[in-house]
């Protein structure tokens, strides 16, 4: 199922945060969205999953206009959102968290629910022995796995994730991202918001860079990872701070976040929209 976002505007009350976002993810594609703190990444995902009203622009899922759908309807249509900070249900068991993840499919066939659960367990075998444990007692990494597994229980065709790697040890980050890669290979469409550009670039098919509510660059990860504007300004130095990152000289003054018009970034627009 493809995801197509056109000219999306959204914000909080009178505060406009997103100023015309274009983003597309084809079926079975993993798109990473990176950007500094406050760039509007979380706001974008909230608007996509219906938590925030879209004030202008459109969202299409597999060609169907789903703009203005609420979270429940979007979940039933096939979009699941794994939120920032995991937000597992702490006093409920891991098993109950998973059951609630499939809430919109509760009247669907039991076989489909069992299959979704088996796939989630296969992806994160660490959860299996902890099914009866209260979710709040899981480690941070396990909670992240549970949050993703809970999202998968909705049997989505498009999965959007908000900073799945935040606060995790490098080995766990690897584990989570290889799971995401596996989901992509199974045909799921993924949009992953990340600050950990290194991890995101390693698995992404395409990357969009956000700054102050706009997509300022997009292209394939290989081209973008050496782009001085990425390592320099847009991540607030996050990418360059990685010890073994390509230390491309920052073209712009450090600290300053130059807004480069998207039309001016032709060189990095390596992939055509579909």
């Amino acid at each position, binding site marked *: 199922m493809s995801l197509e976002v056109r000219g999306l505007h959204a914000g909080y009350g009178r505060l406009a945060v997103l100023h015309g976002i274009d983003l597309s993810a084809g079926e079975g594609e993993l798109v990473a969205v990176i950007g500094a703190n406050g760039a509007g990444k979380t706001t974008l995902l909230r608007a996509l999953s219906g*938590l925030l009203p879209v004030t202008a622009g459109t969202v299409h899922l597999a060609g169907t206009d789903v703009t203005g759908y609420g*979270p429940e309807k979007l979940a039933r249509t096939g979009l699941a959102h794994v*939120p920032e900070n995991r*937000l597992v*249900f702490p006093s409920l068991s891991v098993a109950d968290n998973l059951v609630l993840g499939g809430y919109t499919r509760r009247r669907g066939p039991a076989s489909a629910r069992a299959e979704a659960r088996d796939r989630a367990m296969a992806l994160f075998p660490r959860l299996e022995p902890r099914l009866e444990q209260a979710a*709040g007692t899981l480690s941070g990494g396990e909670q992240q796995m549970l949050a993703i597994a809970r999202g998968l229980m*909705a049997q989505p065709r498009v999965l959007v994730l908000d900073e799945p790697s935040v606060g995790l040890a490098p080995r766990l980050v690897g584990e989570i991202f290889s799971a995401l890669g596996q989901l992509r290979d199974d045909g799921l469409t993924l949009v992953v918001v990340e600050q950990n550009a290194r991890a995101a670039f390693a698995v992404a098919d395409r990357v969009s860079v956000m700054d102050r509510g706009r997509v300022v660059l997009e292209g394939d990860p290989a081209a973008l990872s050496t782009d001085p504007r990425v390592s320099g300004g847009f991540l607030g130095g996050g990418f360059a701070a990685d010890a073994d990152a390509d230390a491309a000289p920052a073209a712009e003054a450090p600290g300053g976040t130059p807004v480069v018009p998207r039309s001016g970034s032709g060189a990095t627009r390596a992939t055509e929209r579909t």
Partner: protein
Amino acid sequence: MTDLLQLLFAGLSQGAVYALVAIGFVAIFTVSGVINLAQGEFAALAGLVAISAVGSGLPLLAAVVLAVVSVALVAVIMERLVIFPVKRMTTLVSLILTLGVSTGLKALMLLVYGPNAEGLTPLTPGGFSVAGVSIRYQELWILLIAGIVSLAVYWFYERTLAGKSLRACAEQPVAARLVGISLTKASLISFLIAGTVGAIAGVLASPIFFTSWESGLTLGLKGFVAATLGGLISVRGAVLGGLLLGVLETLTAGYISTGLRDAVAFLLLIIVLVARPAGIFGRSAEARV
């Protein structure tokens, strides 16, 4: 010794009524952060509806069912008219709104049923005496039915998908919305539960404690104190809080002074709020309902 047993028994049946009212507070507060000051009025209204239905010739059981169903309906209508339309509900706003509903219900009851306190016909009249402790059959009914209702509510939250979805709303409203649970539906269901348990408390208590248009005030306060003893977010805590309050009240009335009876609730409330705001039966702050 006989005195003590007698007081304990009376305290437990009184406490069971508080426990049911307390469950109503917990059911609503966990889902939406609303403190429902009309919770006591649910009980009073159910008592009065049942009394007048019996008075107009309905069999007792039918009158009780009518009372519980109509009060549950009142609770649901209250949610739709007063709670649902508010965009940004805070606990303070909820206090003001539900105080308004409470006052309105009281005025309505005074208008319709008059100022006198009356008692509903007991389910089984009379009583008996064991080892010097006199027991009314109605008190046994209170304990039995309150026990069954509490267990049923507990089972609902712990074992059913609908109950778990309400707990999910209470713990992580954003994540609950993302998995497709409707917060507005959850709030409605929480009022349905609160109306039902409040009404059951009202019809159970009426034969012994009598009902008037204003009896919801004390019952509501006692129920609120019981719920707070349990941390306001736990059904188990609410039940234990209700029983503890009932027993302490009758012991105080029996051994110290009847006049101090109603002071016990406030003393307990102050002690708990100062010493253990999470409730004395609270597990962790996270373990809700």
